[in-house]
């Protein structure tokens, strides 16, 4: 783990030095969204509604990607999915 910088090393005025995509919040979750790809119609509402932007649409792959590194397990995606393709499971394992 890198040590925290001293006052001479940091930018003045608190200019932030790291993007938050380096801060993984995936370990916050208790429930994990599990997808049933058969039911998914790629309406992409889950991509829009996720508060953490943890669900991404990959146009080049033609598929939706769930980024469990950032998913906090809130369940909004499961709740809003029109075809109930997502269920929240009490699981540690994301497989």
């Amino acid at each position, binding site marked *: 783990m890198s040590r925290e910088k001293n006052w001479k090393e*940091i930018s003045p005025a*608190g200019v*932030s*030095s*790291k*993007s*938050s*995509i*380096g*801060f*993984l*919040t995936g370990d*916050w*979750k208790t429930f994990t969204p599990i997808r049933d790809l058969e039911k998914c119609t790629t*309406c*992409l*509402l889950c*991509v*829009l*509604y*996720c*508060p*953490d*932007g*943890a669900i*991404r*649409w990959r*146009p080049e792959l033609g598929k939706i990607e769930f*980024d469990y590194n*950032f998913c*906090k*397990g*809130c*369940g*909004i995606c*499961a*709740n*809003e999915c029109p075809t109930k393709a997502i269920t*929240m499971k009490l699981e540690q394992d994301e497989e």
Partner: protein
Amino acid sequence: MTTQEWKFNTRDIAEKPDLFLSGHRACAGCAPATVLRMVMKATRGPTIVTEATGCMEVISSIYPYTSWATPWLHTAFETAAANASGIDAALKAQKRKGQLKQHIDVIAFAGDGGTYDIGLQALSGAVERGHDFLFVLYDNEGYMNTGIQRSSGTPLGAATTTTPAGSVMLGKLQHKKPISDIMVAHDMEYVATASPYYWKDLMTKVRKGLEVEGPAFLHVFSPCPRGWRSDPAKSIDYSKLAVESCVFPLWEAVNGQYQLSTPSKLVALAPQKKKPVTEYLKGQGRYRHLFTPQGKKVLDEIQRWTDERWAKLLKKCEQTP
């Protein structure tokens, strides 16, 4: 490309990169975070963001991390609009000196504290002076960041830590301040309300607000599962129920002329579909104490007030110049 020309579907929005990045520390199920993501997806070009102290500021800027892919400034709690004023003045100065290469949009985000209460003075002043910025209020109906205290945006009967549900007093004693009507009364070119469930309506309104050459105000309903003691999975659902029960109708006021937005228009056209407020209130822990014999009169008052405001709004929308 103007809003009229901007045709977009979920795919278009999903493909746009996020400007409000993952890795922020908002609670699970935080609707304000969804709102911010959506607003930033609706930006049209180079944008500078400024925020008031509050949930969305704190969770996105814990040094050394930042969740902002745009230039971002925070100074204090009551200052979102004053910041925007300074940024706007600086942009105008740059333009005058020939230093500005292209138009830059300015968005000020604030919660109810930074808008309704402590931030009202700066907001009113900035609007009166005509600075070019879009003010987005993410209304989670309380000072959530400091521990769920009441704001003047907290609705009647809601339990907060400074208006708890006790044996003598049943939550907040005053109705929600009509902040958007106050902004319309400032003779603003564009004031609108929005709700994250209706993402297309919200994003269109963001664009319309950005297009105004002057101040614009967008009031976005933003459920807070922590503060409302509601299921985090249902945050977006509540933003739909609020519109369907007319607790938070969706409208725009263009140069003071009110018009209903489609989701609320549907309710107006089919009043039998209007949901009773209890359907909206019942899952929220902050209203739990009202579902008791003593609380019933408050529930009735909430319904009465909601109906009265809805009727007033319908009347305002009817009046064409």
